[in-house]
């Protein structure tokens, strides 16, 4: 083993780890007694510089290497995903930078970066142990980030709920992994697949599949493992919720697809209509269908925009799971396109909510009334994000849906056996239009209360939101820009 080679492969993560220490020490040593805004400003600057360093290291090592036999696999795709994760982190930091929810600025930023490190290791892992460790690093950071608003009891409640559910699901995941190890004698995904080949579906493998799906179902907030999501999204400081909904989704879906298609190769089964064969695809099909139906229908009755986004996230997890279960090269590309554009969009939507919340003191639908007058630029961004989530062309969300759905139907082109899932998804997405439109109605149709002042949007946040909105439009009009990296 060549340690220099390992260090080079892990250079971006290392750079981030050093940044974590920098952020903590700068805040602790140099910035005591300064105002929170100033501490956030400087801390954010340090974090962003760290992220840029990591981006640079990712670029200088854009090759393909696997120095630790699956613990740290670097190839162009994982590198690109790391760039996406870093970009999402930068946007999260930019959105948080004007926040007033905490005085522990250094710790907050350090945890965001730690979560990013976990997620970056996660996309590079092809080994069960490494997957579990990096997942835990990311999850533990996210639990704490959820609890960061100490002025709000719901924040702690949300974090506790998130943590308890998360701990339980980690146990399930670990149990599934241990069974896999017992069955195959290896923790390396390709070796597991090779060992399981031709064994058929014995009960142990079945249990392993189910517990793995439970573990990841929790991470991606799919029904019936979604119960933590609305509370966590609502209670957490909004930038933390944004990061949970974006960065963590990208990495989790990538690794879920990897484990399923790589580790459980040969145990796919089939989810086609009238052609059901047990395996992991029908299981995911059920979870996906439940998520789409329950997420969309429950979102209709929400009055808090953050909860609404949480239920919509559950519904979107359902669409993305379709991309996992189709299990073809084109569906994997479609899934990644979907999850990346979704992450950008939802991050933007949470960014808008952050601003509105700071200015009006809440995230209820009524707080958005007359937004188009009070902050025209902000509400235009909101329009773009929500319409993209609803799947209105030519925004990125629509193209993503088209990619996923066409790839899913195309996976069984002769019989169109997976069409039933796509029909369900498309009809549910028609339902989703209603609740997104409810928010936009508040912003564009209803008037704000008399003499409501204009909302001042911090310049940094506005910059981030406009950039995100432009990306969402651009990736919708020219999806090739993203597609060629996937």
């Amino acid at each position, binding site marked *: 083993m060549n340690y220099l080679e390992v260090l080079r492969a892990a250079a971006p993560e290392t750079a981030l780890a050093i940044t974590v220490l920098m952020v903590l020490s700068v805040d602790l040593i140099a910035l005591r007694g300064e105002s929170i805004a100033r501490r956030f400003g400087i801390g954010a600057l340090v974090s962003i510089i760290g992220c840029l360093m990591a981006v640079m290291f990712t670029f200088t090592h854009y090759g393909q290497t696997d120095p630790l036999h699956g613990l740290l696999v670097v190839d162009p795709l994982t590198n690109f995903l790391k760039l996406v994760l870093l970009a999402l982190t930068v946007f999260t930091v930019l959105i948080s930078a004007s926040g007033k929810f905490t005085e522990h600025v250094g710790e907050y930023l350090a945890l965001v970066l730690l979560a990013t490190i976990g997620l970056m290791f996660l996309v590079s892992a092809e080994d069960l142990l490494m997957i579990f460790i990096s997942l835990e690093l990311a999850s533990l950071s996210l639990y704490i980030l959820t609890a960061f608003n100490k002025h709000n009891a719901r924040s702690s409640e949300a974090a506790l709920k998130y943590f308890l559910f998360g701990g339980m699901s980690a146990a399930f995941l670990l149990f599934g992994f241990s069974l896999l190890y017992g069955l195959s004698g290896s923790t390396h995904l390709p070796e597991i697949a090779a060992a399981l080949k031709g064994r058929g579906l014995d009960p142990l493998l079945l249990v392993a599949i189910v517990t793995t799906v439970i573990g990841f179902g929790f991470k991606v907030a799919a029904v019936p493992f979604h119960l933590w999501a609305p509370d966590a999204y609502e209670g957490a400081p909004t930038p933390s919720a944004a990061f949970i909904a974006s960065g963590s989704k990208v990495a989790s879906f990538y690794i879920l697809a990897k484990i399923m298609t790589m580790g459980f190769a040969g145990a796919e089964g089939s989810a086609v209509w009238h052609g059901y064969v047990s395996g992991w695809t029908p299981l995911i099909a059920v979870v996906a269908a439940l998520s789409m139906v329950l997420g969309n229908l429950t979102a209709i009755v929400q009055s808090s925009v953050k909860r609404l986004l949480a239920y919509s996230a559950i519904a979107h997890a359902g669409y993305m799971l379709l991309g996992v279960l189709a299990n073809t090269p084109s569906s994997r590309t479609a899934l990644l396109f979907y999850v990346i554009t979704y992450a950008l969009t939802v991050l933007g939507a949470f960014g808008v909510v952050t601003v509105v919340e700071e200015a009006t003191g809440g995230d209820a639908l009524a707080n958005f009334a007359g937004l188009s007058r009070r902050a025209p630029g902000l509400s235009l961004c909101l329009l773009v994000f929500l319409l993209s989530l609803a799947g209105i062309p030519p925004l990125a969300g629509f193209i993503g849906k088209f990619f996923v759905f066409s790839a899913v*139907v195309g996976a069984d*082109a002769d019989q169109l056996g997976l069409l039933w899932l796509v029909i369900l998804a498309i009809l549910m997405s028609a339902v989703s239009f209603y609740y997104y439109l409810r928010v936009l109605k508040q912003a564009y149709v209803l008037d704000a209360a008399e003499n409501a002042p204009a909302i001042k949007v911090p310049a940094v946040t506005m910059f981030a939101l406009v950039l995100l909105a432009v990306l969402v439009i651009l990736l919708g009009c020219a999806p090739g820009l993203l597609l060629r990296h996937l």
Partner: protein
Amino acid sequence: MLAWTIYISFIGVLVLMLLPREAARAARIIALLTAIAGCAVAFVGAMQQANPGEVITIVKVPWIPSLGANYFLAADGISLVLVVLTGLAAIAGILFSWNIEKRTKEFFAYYLALIGGVYGVFLSFDVLLLFVFYELTIIPKYFLIARWGSTRKEYGAMKLALYSFVGSHLVLIGLIAAWVVARAQTGHATLDLMELSKVSFPLGFQHWVFPLVFVGFGILAGLWPFHTWAPTGHVAAPTAGSMLLAGVVMKLGAYGCLRVAMVLFPDGARMWQGEIAALAVIGIIYGAGVALVQKDFKFVIGYSSVSHMGFVLLGLATLNTIGLSGAVLQMFSHGIIAGLLFAVVGRMVYDRTHTRDFNDLQTMQLGKLLPFAGVTFVLAGVASMGLPGFSGFVAELQVLMGAWKVFPKTTMLAGVGIVAGVAYTLRAVQKAFYSDAVVPEKSGHDHPLEPISMPERIGAVMLITASLVIGLFPGLLLNWIQPCLNSPLFERLLKGGLL
């Protein structure tokens, strides 16, 4: 050249967005200039097209190669007819909303965005691109009604948006399925309408996918029983909104039925021909019957739109040249006439009297107070009931002739709808304008009604002229429509494909 109709409209939107809030007058003028420019481009572009039977490519560049999607704008004669209609309707709508004072620039920005999307649908020859423009129109429609409308505007707007969205999603299911089947059959991915129309989809597939796509588009065309958005939406919309809804948006649906559903799945169309004709005739009679008993002036016109769009759908169901060309002609004709009717009701009458209830209007002697409005409505009314000399006559006659060849009994029923059409129009004319009901001693309005303004007069004269010209010289449009129907694109539809 024609692609500039789309670009000009969206440039107009951008310019309006950059205007200061207070500049209402500037916003109106910019909107009007944009619409005129768009209409002029449409006319010139249409004139330049030497052979309307051919599909002339305007621009074709790869968009998403992995899906086989292109940015492919093109036009044949049918597109030309509808693009010209859109140009005229756009100008008229702006002339009739000259009095919008609330958030003027935003109103016209949404308005032009809607127009741009409509031009885009009529010029797209890539099904994904067509779908993009089709959905792009939903949002401005919603905001126009919800923000500037009247009578249960939020309900009407939401209903219209949801109906459109559900319809377009039915279409999306069909498109994705068709894309997959075509790729499996030909070995390469394509979303090009011309290429897809050459694929022979299996009969069993066409049997279920055709009704899905046809109904998906048909919802927006007012296909009974999915028409219920139309009366509420039309009534809730501001005048220009209902003019556009009836004038061009309903045509988007009918155009989609013809251009996508029927051209791609000709055998499916043949299988479901009878059912569509039945629904169309029910729509004709039902719309006319319900219009006959309305108390609200605008609901009469709203239901009459459902009835007249029934003729379009009946024409489509004939699957013969004369019926189809009648259907396209009826799209144009109804676009002009319904626009005019809504203009009279919404702008000339309602904006002045603030009531649309026949019981109130009866006492007002509007025929004397607003003679211009009365005469315009009479002319529009007779055009709408199909008096020879106006465009409605030629169009409906062709539809009925086409339908007679295929389903004579159903066609006779459609005649009932025509008679009812005469009845509800005359009833509306009489009740709203020329009632001899006794005027109560102290009549309600003390202040005189504001006289008909110049923009209104210009708009009305423009639309009446258009209807008359086409009524007297239908060849102008038929020369564009008929060569198209004889082109290879429609060959399988008219001559029978696998069946």
